[in-house]
């Protein structure tokens, strides 16, 4: 093997004429567009991250269903059976779990994105890769991990007599889109900021702790209105994640209750869709701005890692 020639199949990639036709450009292209262009690599990064999560386990991907299923059972037992929280609210466990799906998706996108550049240090400092690739891949990984949770949520909802309606599905989709865009925008900004000051990683962790309590998941939205009254309740709704969670509640939880229209009237604020659409647009603008900031800072990332 060692003494045979190497195959002598060295080929020039381009003929001289082809080369002349190629542009003289900076060696590495960047930006979200480049991430889309190199989607084969993106798919591979996402696939490998997913694959390596359950590496070495016997159950493999079953874990991704087992963990959220157990979590749901726990909630059900704790809130429905033990505390009996269901007094004012029907199917509180679904309310909680539906919120958790979104919060989980957001936290993983945000925190994963924040750490993504630092975690891929060995690659970034040596080979030219569009850096946006890493926060984006973390968002896709987070989305993939949301699927099992969503499957369990759907399963429980169907058991409770939930029938999908067009408006509900639209609400859920809007909620996920809003969360994805917001998570990506924050992931982009924090990933690059974290390279310059590791404090941003800690800030991200702290912020995600707030998220859990600032959305109508462990408590109904009505509680905010009852306790704090009008100005506060309106401010509360400025939180895009609270909006996303409310959209998910509209998508799944209200449909499982005995009188969906009644539940919606009591527990969901007015103008749910208008607010959701506006916030999604704003989140989209945030992604564009985040990308701008990212590309301004990224040229100094390789040497600061």
């Amino acid at each position, binding site marked *: 093997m060692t003494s045979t020639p190497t195959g002598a199949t060295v080929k020039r990639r381009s003929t001289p004429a082809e080369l002349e036709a190629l542009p003289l450009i900076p060696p*590495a292209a960047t930006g979200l567009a480049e991430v889309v262009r190199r989607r084969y690599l993106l798919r591979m990064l996402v696939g490998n991250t997913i694959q*390596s999560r359950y590496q070495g386990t016997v159950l493999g991907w079953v874990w991704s269903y087992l963990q959220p299923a157990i979590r749901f059972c726990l909630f059900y037992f704790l809130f429905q059976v033990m505390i009996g929280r269901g007094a004012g609210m029907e199917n509180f466990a679904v309310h909680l779990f539906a919120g958790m799906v979104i919060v989980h998706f957001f936290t993983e996108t945000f925190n994963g994105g924040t750490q993504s550049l630092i975690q891929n240090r060995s690659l970034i400092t040596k080979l030219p*890769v569009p850096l946006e690739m890493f926060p984006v891949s973390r968002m896709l990984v987070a989305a993939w991990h949301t699927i099992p949770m969503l499957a369990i949520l759907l399963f429980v909802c169907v058991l409770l007599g939930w029938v999908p309606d067009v408006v509900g599905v639209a609400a859920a989709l809007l909620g996920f889109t809003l969360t994805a865009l917001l998570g990506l925008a924050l992931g982009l900004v924090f990933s690059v900021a974290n390279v310059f000051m590791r404090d941003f990683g800690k800030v991200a962790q702290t912020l995600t702790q707030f998220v859990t309590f600032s959305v109508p998941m462990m408590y109904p939205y009505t509680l905010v209105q009852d306790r704090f009254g009008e100005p506060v309740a309106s401010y509360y709704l400025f939180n895009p994640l609270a909006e996303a969670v409310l959209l998910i509640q509209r998508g799944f939880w209200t449909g499982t209750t005995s009188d969906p229209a009644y539940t919606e009237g009591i527990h969901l604020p007015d103008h749910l869709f208008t607010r959701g659409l506006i916030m999604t647009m704003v989140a989209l603008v945030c992604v564009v701005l985040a990308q701008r900031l990212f590309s301004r800072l990224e040229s100094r990332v390789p040497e600061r890692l």
Partner: protein
Amino acid sequence: MTTMIQVENATKSFTMSYQRSLKQIVLAKARGRKTHDVFNAVDDVSFTVQEGESIGLMGLNGSGKSTLLKLVSGVMRPDAGSVLTRGRIAGLIATGAGFDPQLSGRDNLFLNAAILGMSRAETLRKFDEIVDFADLGKFLDTEVAYYSSGMKARLGFAVAINVDADIFIADEALAVGDRPFKRKCKRRMDEIVASGVTMFYVSHAPGSVRNLCSRVLVLDHGKLAFDGDVDEGIAFLEYNDDDDERGRGNADDGLGADI
């Protein structure tokens, strides 16, 4: 002739921070000490490389070779001036960077090829050749975490050297592996040069530069100190060595200490 690499007044400066925490910075400021320093790793360098040329980049440790290589490969961007290239760049830079130890050699092969810019179809077409070159045998489907360092290096090399490129970049510091494998790499590089691919080769070893290259660039403290004939370039560098740092220059030969 087509210009393949065009570097114009490229400058790359690095900031050295002496302190990082707020407390340290405040204390240093109060005592009138410097909190950071800026130096130019690559300082106002200009040159062009034509198609089919084979460039040897030489210089002492810390002269900015690696930084210049990173500017050309696109890992870093110049703070001032411009670096432009034509076509796909590949080569023996950071072979094996981005390996995921939890994945098998086969998965890593595909991942690494994708990082280097190959499509799936291209990787499949080259697959047998890469596997042959890496010579891993039955370990191909073992997780890379269990590979010996030599095996890991061979796999990285095999992928990198099989990427069809318009500009081939090589950092000699990475030439690890046993003797037969080194010879195989050497032969492969000769073939690449012979095929007319533009080569950009960083080395401390005069022998291999003489063998592979048609032109030499010498960097000194980030500035381009010499650009021209191979033998003259080597003489230029050795003249500097004789002057003050002969031992250092020679000791680096083939050690791969250049990071």
